[in-house]
């Protein structure tokens, strides 16, 4: 099949989706290898753009990059084929697990395994908070913001969507005020 065929696009992202665990940043080097080095669909410096865009819109980075690269190679159908490829491995695997999960947990050994796994999930999420938080809470201002948002979410049960919008709003207001200050400084 041709290098730019829809099937090849689909297959490439299918392979990427099937072999990357945990999602996100772990798959970026693999995506890069496939789309830049192996297939030459985009150039090295374009890949940086793809990643930046994929991270700055909603959704999973892997799915976003697949759509973007698919579009660059073959337009709308290419975007769709690549997206399908990126999504299908997860979809199939999870469907199989979900179909048998309730039956699985009837086995004593599976129930025991999950009794061990559940507390580990707390650790997993806490570790993610620390990993993501470290570069952000370098300033006292950001640390304070994190605490306020945590309080609003955990204690006051504010809807996460509201908090995400509020966060973006805080960033915009701060930028506006800094801009204003800078221009006042210029005119003085």
């Amino acid at each position, binding site marked *: 099949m041709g290098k730019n065929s829809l099937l090849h696009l689909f297959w490439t992202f299918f392979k990427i989706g099937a072999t990357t665990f945990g999602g996100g940043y772990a798959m970026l080097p693999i995506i890069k290898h496939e789309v830049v080095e192996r297939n030459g669909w985009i150039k090295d410096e374009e890949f940086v753009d793809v990643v930046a865009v994929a991270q700055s819109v909603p959704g999973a980075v892997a799915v976003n990059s697949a759509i973007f690269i698919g579009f660059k190679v073959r337009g709308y159908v290419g975007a769709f084929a690549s997206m399908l490829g990126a999504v299908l491995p997860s979809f199939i695997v999870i469907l199989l697990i979900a179909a048998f999960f309730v039956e699985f947990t009837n086995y004593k050994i599976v129930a025991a395994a999950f009794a061990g796994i559940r507390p580990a999930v707390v650790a*997993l*999420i806490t570790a993610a908070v620390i990993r993501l938080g470290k570069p952000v809470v370098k300033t006292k201002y950001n640390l304070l913001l994190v605490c306020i948002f945590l309080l609003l979410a955990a204690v006051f049960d504010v809807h996460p*969507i509201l908090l995400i919008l509020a966060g973006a709003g805080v960033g915009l207001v701060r930028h506006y005020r800094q801009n204003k200050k800078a221009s006042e400084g210029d005119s003085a």
Partner: protein
Amino acid sequence: MIVLQLYFAFLKIGLFSIGGGYVMLPLIEKEIISVHGWLTPAQFVDIVAIAEMTPGPVAINSATFIGYQTAGFWGSVFATAGVVTPSLVFILLIAKLMQHFYQNRWVQAGFTGLRPAVIGLIASAAIFVARTTLSDLTAALFAVAAFLLLTFTRLHPILVLALAALGGILVYG
């Protein structure tokens, strides 16, 4: 129609999943558990674990799983379609119209502000999961051990979960 409800619930979740896969967790907790009651907190924790242990993004994995649990095969199709719809719309718009929008100073300022909110939200999801799972001392010890392994060794999270499973079988089996 429950499949349409699933589609729109996951569209909403997908639309606000900005800044990494785990942002979904507080959104799922709110929309799927509190608002719709499609999932119990314990099921939610199991799904997070399974999503982490299987290939692919957490977003797709949890949408497929929750969709299936709620409404069978078509539930998983609609939930997954919902969660990728925002990706499709945004990426195609950007690819077509404004490839350099992320370099815009206002967009970057919005993102800078978003990050503390996202971290606060994920931390709140950690508290929610802790409340659900840490019911006794043994469970708390499991959590601490897993945390130490994740933080101080270079073990892959999947291996840590596998060890936790093994520990569970030894202790509870």
